[in-house]
C-alpha cells in the first residue's frame, strides 16, 4: 500500500503542476490604445498557450540585407543593427507580442500576430528612413557640366530622341533659355540636356514623368557619373508634380556632403498644419546636432536646402532664411496623417544600416486561423471519441483505465506546451490529434502482454507485473525512435513544422508517463481493492 501511496503522490504532484501551468493568468501585453493609438501595457486573462500565426492570424516576414544595388560587406553586423532598429519601430507600431529575431547569420525574422494591414507593417519595417539635409547646387555646376555629359553620351553612341525642347520649356523662365542655348552650341540637341528643364531654384530640374525611367538610366551610367562635377550628386524628388497638363518629376543636383543626418534626431511627431492642411512631421535635434546644424545653416543663409529621405527629396527645398538650430519640419503635402505618423515613427526609431528586402512572407487572416482552430478541435474530438470507443470496446475495464490515463496525457501535453513556452501551430494541432492515436500504443502493448501472461497461466498479480515489465523494452525502443525523427524535424524544420515536432516530442514524453506509471498505479489500486478478483477485465 505504501508503494501505491508514493505513486499516487507523484502523479498528484504532476497533475497539480500541469493544472497550475494551464490556469488562465494575467499576461501583460502591449496593445494600441483605442483613443490615442499609442502603445500601452495591459493585462489580459487567458490560458497561457501561445498560438502560432497560422492559428491566430498575422504576418511572418523574413528579411535580408538588400544586395541588389551592390554588395554589403558585413551582412551579420548590418542585420544585428537592423534588428535593434526594427524592434524599436515594431514596439511602437502597435501589435501584441511581436517577434523580432535573427535567424542564422544574416536573416531577420519579424512576426506580428493579428496584424490586419500587412502592407503598412511591411512599409514601416522595410523603410530605411535615412534622413539627410543637403544644400542644392547653388553655383549651377551641374548645369555647366551638361554639355560635357552630353558629349560623353554622344561618344557612347546615344542619340537624342526629341529634336527640340518642347514649348513647355518656356514656362520655366529665363534659365531654360540659357539651357537651350547650351544645347544649341553643340549643333545637335544634347541627349540628356534635351530631357531636362530648368526648375525654379538653382539645382532643380524637371523631367517629364514618362521620360523619368530613361533619364534615371542615363544618369546611372558610369560615363555620365565620371563627367559629373566634383562634390555634386543627383537626387530625385519623392513625388511627381504637375505643371499645366503634364506631370513632371524633379531632379535635384545637391552637394554630396550632407550638412546633417537623421542620426542627430531625438524627437519626431506628426501633425496636420492648421493653415495649409498639409501633413507635416516636426522634429527636434540633439544638442550636438543642433549646434552643428546651427553652424551650417548660418553659413548657408539664402541657400536652398533639400530634405532627403531614403535618397528622395521631400517636397521643394526651402530657402534658409536665418540660422536654424534644433527644430525643423518635413512637409508631406496632402498625404494622409497616418503616413506622416508612420514617418515620424521610423525617424524616431532611427535609420536602418542598409535597405532590407523581404525573402519570405506569410500572411494569414485571423478568420482563416479561427477556422483552422475550429476544424482542428472538431477533428480532435472525433478522433478521441473513436479511440475511446475502440479501447473500452476491446479492453473493457482496462480500456477505461487507459482512457482515463489519456485525459491525463492531454493535460500533460498541453501543460508541457504552456510551461516551456512552445507555440501551438496548425500542424502542431494535427500532430496532437495524431499522437492521441499513437499514445494508446503503449497501453495496447502492455494489455496484450498481460493477456499473454494470463494465457500462460500466471496469477493475476504476476501477470500484471510481468506484462508491464516485458512490454517495457518494446515501448522504450519504439518511442525513442519516434522521438529521434521528431528531434531531427525540429532541428531542420521552420515555424509550423517545428510546432508539429514539438507537440510530437512532448506527446511522447507525456504518453510514457501516463501510459506507464499512471495506468500501472491504477492497476495496483484495482488489484489492491479487489484481492478476491480471479479474472481481469482486460
Amino acid at each position: 500500500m505504501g508503494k501505491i501511496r508514493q505513486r499516487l503522490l507523484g502523479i498528484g504532484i504532476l497533475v497539480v503542476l500541469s493544472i497550475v501551468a494551464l490556469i488562465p493568468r494575467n499576461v501583460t501585453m502591449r496593445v494600441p490604445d483605442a483613443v490615442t493609438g499609442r502603445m500601452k501595457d495591459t493585462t489580459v486573462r487567458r490560458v497561457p498557450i501561445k498560438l502560432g500565426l497560422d492559428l491566430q492570424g498575422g504576418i511572418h516576414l523574413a528579411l535580408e540585407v538588400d544586395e541588389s544595388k551592390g554588395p554589403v560587406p558585413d551582412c551579420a553586423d548590418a542585420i544585428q543593427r537592423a534588428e535593434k532598429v526594427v524592434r524599436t519601430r515594431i514596439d511602437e507600431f502597435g501589435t501584441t507580442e511581436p517577434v523580432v529575431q535573427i535567424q542564422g547569420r544574416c536573416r531577420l525574422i519579424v512576426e506580428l500576430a493579428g496584424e490586419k494591414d500587412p502592407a503598412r507593417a511591411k512599409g514601416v519595417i522595410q523603410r530605411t528612413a535615412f534622413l539627410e539635409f543637403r544644400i542644392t547646387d547653388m553655383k549651377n555646376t551641374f548645369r555647366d557640366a551638361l554639355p560635357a555629359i552630353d558629349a560623353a553620351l554622344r561618344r557612347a553612341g546615344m542619340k537624342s530622341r526629341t529634336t527640340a525642347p518642347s514649348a513647355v520649356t518656356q514656362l520655366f523662365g529665363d534659365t531654360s533659355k540659357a539651357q537651350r542655348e547650351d544645347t544649341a552650341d553643340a549643333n545637335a540637341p544634347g541627349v540628356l540636356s534635351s530631357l531636362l528643364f530648368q526648375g525654379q531654384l538653382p539645382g532643380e530640374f524637371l523631367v517629364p514623368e514618362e521620360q523619368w525611367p530613361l533619364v534615371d538610366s542615363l544618369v546611372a551610367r558610369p560615363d555620365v557619373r565620371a563627367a559629373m562635377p566634383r562634390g555634386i550628386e543627383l537626387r530625385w524628388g519623392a513625388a511627381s508634380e504637375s505643371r499645366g497638363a503634364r506631370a513632371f518629376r524633379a531632379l535635384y543636383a545637391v552637394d554630396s556632403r550632407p550638412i546633417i543626418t537623421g542620426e542627430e534626431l531625438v524627437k519626431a511627431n506628426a501633425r496636420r498644419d492648421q493653415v495649409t492642411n498639409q501633413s507635416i512631421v516636426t522634429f527636434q535635434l540633439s544638442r550636438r546636432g543642433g549646434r552643428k546644424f546651427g553652424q551650417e545653416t548660418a553659413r548657408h543663409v539664402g541657400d536652398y536646402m533639400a530634405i532627403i529621405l531614403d535618397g528622395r527629396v521631400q517636397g521643394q527645398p526651402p530657402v534658409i532664411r536665418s540660422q536654424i538650430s534644433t527644430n525643423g519640419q518635413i512637409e508631406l503635402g496632402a498625404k494622409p496623417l497616418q503616413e506622416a505618423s508612420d514617418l515620424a515613427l521610423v525617424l524616431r526609431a532611427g535609420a536602418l544600416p542598409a535597405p532590407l528586402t523581404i525573402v519570405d512572407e506569410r500572411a494569414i487572416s485571423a478568420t482563416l486561423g479561427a477556422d483552422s482552430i475550429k476544424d482542428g478541435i472538431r477533428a480532435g474530438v472525433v478522433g478521441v471519441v473513436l479511440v475511446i470507443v475502440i479501447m473500452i470496446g476491446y479492453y473493457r475495464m482496462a480500456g477505461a483505465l487507459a482512457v482515463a490515463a489519456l485525459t491525463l496525457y492531454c493535460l500533460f501535453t498541453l501543460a508541457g506546451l504552456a510551461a516551456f513556452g512552445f507555440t501551438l501551430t496548425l500542424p502542431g494541432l494535427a500532430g496532437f490529434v495524431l499522437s492521441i492515436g499513437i499514445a494508446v500504443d503503449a497501453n495496447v502493448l502492455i494489455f496484450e502482454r498481460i493477456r499473454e501472461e494470463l494465457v500462460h497461466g500466471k496469477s493475476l498479480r504476476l501477470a500484471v507485473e510481468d506484462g508491464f515489465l516485458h512490454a517495457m523494452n518494446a515501448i522504450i525502443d519504439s518511442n525513442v525512435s519516434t522521438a529521434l525523427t521528431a528531434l531531427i524535424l525540429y532541428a531542420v524544420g521552420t515555424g509550423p513544422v517545428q510546432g508539429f515536432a514539438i507537440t510530437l516530442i512532448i506527446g511522447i514524453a507525456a504518453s510514457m508517463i501516463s501510459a506507464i506509471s499512471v495506468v500501472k498505479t491504477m492497476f495496483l489500486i484495482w488489484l489492491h481493492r479487489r484481492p478476491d478478483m480471479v479474472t481481469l477485465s482486460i
Partner: protein
Amino acid sequence: MIRLFANANYDFIKWRRWAFGLTGAIMLVGLAALATRGLNYSIEFTGGTLVQFELAHKTPTANLRAALDNEGLTGADVYNFGSDTSYVVRARLGGAAAAGEAGTQEVADAVAKALDQSVGPGQYHIARREAVGPKVGRELQGKALMAILLSFLVTMIYLAIRFEWRFGLAAVIATAHDVVATLAFISIMHLEVSLIVVGAVLTVVGYSLNDTIIIFDRVRENLKKYRRQNLYEILNLSINETLPRSVLTHGTTIATTMALLVLAGEVIRPFAWVMSFGIFTGTFSSIYIAAPVLLWIEKRWPGQDARGARTFGTRAPAGTQPFAPPSPPAPAAPTSSPSPRTPQPAR
C-alpha cells in the same frame, strides 16, 4: 473478453515473394508517375507566390483566370480550395514564366489588383498570402532532404546500438521502402509537397520504424526463448504474437488520421493523406519487408543467436513438426474465443 487474432498462426513469410511483387508493382507505377509528372512542389520549395482568397459571391474560375491573364499572370495556377467561394492562386518561380521577371511580392500585389477588377474591391477577402523568394526555397529543399537522410542515419545508429546490425539494416531497408512507396503515393495522388508533407513523411518513417521495432523486439525475445526453432519459424511466430497489438494500434491511429482527413480542413488534408497511407505501408513493410529481409540478411551473412551457439536455418527443417507456439492450439482464423486456460469465462 474480445480477442482478435489471438493465437493466430499464419505463415506470413511464405507469401514474401507475392508481397515483393505487389509492392514492386505499386512502386513501379509510382516511379513512372514521378518520372513523367514529377512532384507537385509547394512554393515553399520552388519559391513563388500563393494567394488564398474568399469571394463574397460565387464567380466562375474562367472569369478569375481572365482577370489574372490581364495582369500578366498567365502562368499562375488558379484552383478551388475547399469550398465554392474559396480560391487559391499559385505562381511558382521559374515555372511556366508565371510572373516574368517580377518578384514574388509584385505577383501578390498583381493578384489583388486582378481581384479588384474582376470581382470588385470589398467583394473578396484575402485569407492567406505567401511570397517565398528563390533563396529561401532552395534552402528549404536542402533542409528537407537533409532531414530525411539524417533521420535514416540516426535511427540506423540507434538500432545498431539497441539491436544487432542485421536487425538495424533490415529495419532501415523496410523504412526506405516506406519512403519510396509514400513518394509513389504522393506522386500518384498528385498531392502538393509542402514542408508539412515532408513532416508527415518523417512521421511515417518514425511510425514504421516503431512498428518494425515491436516485431523485432519480439523476435529478439523469442530467439532467446525457443532455441530449437529456426529463424523462419521465429519470425512467423513473432509476427503472429504481435498481431493483436498491430490491429489495435493501427486501428486507433487510423481513426485519428481519418478524423484529420475528413474534418481538419484543406491545409491539413495532404498531411492526413500521407499519414493514412503511411500507416498502411508501415504496417505492411514491418511484416512483409523487414522480416523477410532479415531472413535474407541472415542467409547471406549468417550470424549467431543470443548465446553464440549456432547459425540460423532459413527454412522449416524437413521432417520436423511445424512449429506451434506453446500456448494451446487455436483455430487459425480470426476468432474471439475465450482461451481455455482462463479459469473462468470473461465477463
